[in-house]
């Protein structure tokens, strides 16, 4: 881990610092603050002060407490949704690359069909139909994101599938499980790992968009997108309340992207030296 950090360039190290600080803050921050995220502790849209460092929101709740708690919610939902997307997309992508033939054809075309719909609109339709709850949100986001994970995994796994060691394993009559975990996954893991970071950021943006549109995480749970919506009016009064949660989201996205870029560069360099 420390070696990895040493290999990263400056911007990726900055990314690591941003992400680590962000994660620590959303994990432990709410415990250290005197206010909870749901408690009304001041008047509406107070400017930043010694008691409320970032001011208060549209009903007088402490904005810092809400950003940290909301950030935690956004991170958790995005993380689990991304895990779900990889749990669906990776095995299918590798299986499609290894098996080929009609299986590959059917899965790939189904994914194409799913990708033909604009993601956000599809999510809005489905969520209005089945109702908004955290499990349905997670499922929706995982399925949407899994299409792209599938595409990428299939592409990188196809390169591996053309290798003769796959043919050797095929001649041995290995099971799909062996192909997945022993032959292909170790070879595509670096690519998928960086993709995980990108998908995570997209998931965070998607959940925030959904919340902003009112179909994401429901009150009283705070989350970054919902907070922008709740405080949107404050912008006309020149208050920073809607900007701050958006900034927090941007910070997380930038941090993760810096790390991913650094990792991609590092992997590319390794390939050159081979």
């Amino acid at each position: 881990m420390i070696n990895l950090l040493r290999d990263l360039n400056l911007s990726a190290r900055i990314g690591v610092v941003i992400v680590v600080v962000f994660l620590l803050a959303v994990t432990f921050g709410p415990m250290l603050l005197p206010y909870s995220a749901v408690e009304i502790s001041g008047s509406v849209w107070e400017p930043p002060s010694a008691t409320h460092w970032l001011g208060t929101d549209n009903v007088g709740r402490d904005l810092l407490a809400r950003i940290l708690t909301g950030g935690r919610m956004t991170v958790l939902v995005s993380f689990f949704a991304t895990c779900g997307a990889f749990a669906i997309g990776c095995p299918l992508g590798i299986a499609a690359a290894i098996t080929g033939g009609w299986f590959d054809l059917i899965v790939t075309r189904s994914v194409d069909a799913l990708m033909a719909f604009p993601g956000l609109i599809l999510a809005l339709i489905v969520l209005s139909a089945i109702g908004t709850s955290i499990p349905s949100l997670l499922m929706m986001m995982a399925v949407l994101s899994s299409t792209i994970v599938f595409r990428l995994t299939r592409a990188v796994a196809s390169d591996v599938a053309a290798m003769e060691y796959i043919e050797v394993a095929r001649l041995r009559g290995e099971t799909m499980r062996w192909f997945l975990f022993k032959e292909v996954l170790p070879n595509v893991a670096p690519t998928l790992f960086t993709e995980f970071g990108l998908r995570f950021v997209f998931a965070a943006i998607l959940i925030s968009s959904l919340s902003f549109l009112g179909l994401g995480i429901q009150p009283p749970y705070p989350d970054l997108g919902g907070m922008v919506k709740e405080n949107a009016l404050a912008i006309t009064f020149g208050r920073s309340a809607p900007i701050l949660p958006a900034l927090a989201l941007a910070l997380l996205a930038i941090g993760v992207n810096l790390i991913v870029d650094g990792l991609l560069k590092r992997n590319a360099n390794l390939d050159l030296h081979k």
Partner: protein
Amino acid sequence: MNDYLLEMRDLRIETIVDSRKKRAKPTEILKGIDLTLRRGEVVGLIGESGAGKSTIGLAAMGYARRGLRLSSGEIWLDGQQILGGSVAQLAQLRGQKVAYVAQSAAASFNPAHRLLAQVLEVTKIHKHMNTAKAEKRAVELFARMGLPHPEAFGMRYPHEVSGGQLQRAMTAMALAGEPDLIVFDEPTTALDVTTQIDVLAIIKEVIQEYKTAALYITHDLGVVAQISDRIKVLKNGAEVEEQATESLLNAPQNAYTKELLNVRSTVIETELSDDEPVALGAEGIDASYGTVQVLNDVSVALKRGSNLAIVGESGSGKSTLARVIMGLLPPSKGTLSYNDQPLSSGLSDRTASQRKSIQMIYQLPDVAMNPRQTIAEIIGRPAQVFVGMSKQNTLNRVHELLHLVDLPVEMAQAYPNQLSGGQKQRVCIARALAAEPDVIICDEVTSALDPLVADGIIELLLKLQRKFGISYIFITHDMAMVRAIANDVVVMKAGTVVEQGAKARVFAPPFNDYTHLLMSSTPEMRVGWLENVLTERRMEAGGQ
């Protein structure tokens, strides 16, 4: 001053080390090379991979590969010191004074541009010819290279011409800038023998005609003997010896050179009768990829405990035949048999014992081993799958197998990229052995290896044959190897069997025309072989 065109004095090249890693030391790639070349002279550089041949070739252009640097020494080209020259100065040099012909023409041409544009690029950059004149010269060169329809040839894209033509086009490209020196880096290695001989003949003619000096890099002594005036033998970045071609071939001074000259140590001459039991047979096989038929009524028989060599050029269908036998490509017609029992054409219909008994070794060990698995996992897995070995016993078996293929047992914990090419191929042999097979199909197992290493691999395979009675099918284009170790030979061309039978019969008169062409195209390690063959062919053609 002297009259050398190219002069290298004590040239040293080393790897660049990461300045943050304090303890890392640079590795020396070239350890003080001296080289001189007069105008119109051809010097051959020969040695195994890693000997530094290509590094010298590139250094002659003032270029060091990524990750390398010229640490000391001098390089004089036409009286001009090129070490430390600026990028612009070097660019002036390249293409005008010195040009480069790479091993893989297919990878060196840009597939998106027409050949003419690429061949003329150098004259455009250096602006020493107007376009009309340059085009005329290109057509001249194409004609000189024996390319078909020289006027129209340049309008083709790289994928529209054959490998041999592309290699000639690349030589034309090198000549387009009228350089004083051309560096040939294994220009014929990727070609079939029958194509190689044509390309070789043309390269030789044009460098004589244009009085161009050349550095000719190869690992094949037979090739370099035809073309060079002098040969420099290299090993691990240092010079072993340098002599005029004739005297090097006849009186090598150094032990390593002597080894290079007589690589093949074992010769098998046992002749097997036709009634010997057949281990593996294929009868009337037709096979196709999609709508393209690649095998047409192919029948072969591998006698138990013997070596069957299948020879032919690329595209002759020899590897496809191997895939059919392995069950990877079900044939559209024909039957397979193993020990007189029918063998299903599809892999999934074969019994476990049939799958275990027929194993395969590939040409490129790099892609035949999963880079993320240890050697122990790679070798151990077939022992578990085919022989049903428990996890505890597997490691012992792995050590035993490593010992059999003459590798240290400590290697079990290494990953493939930590091994040399020869070691990797030994691991692949161990993996095939782990299944305890009766038949092993060797698909060009030595063609990616240096001659001495390849000979070691063949020795090993024969040792294992004596020990376990394994039968081999060797798929190869290396006629020298076939002559040495095969019992039976099958000659293939364009998906059909041209000739087959016992080695002594196939390689003795009366010759089949195609077999004769293959045999006579294999370079021999003597001066004048190329001219002899060409004269002979001309006479034959004239006589008919």
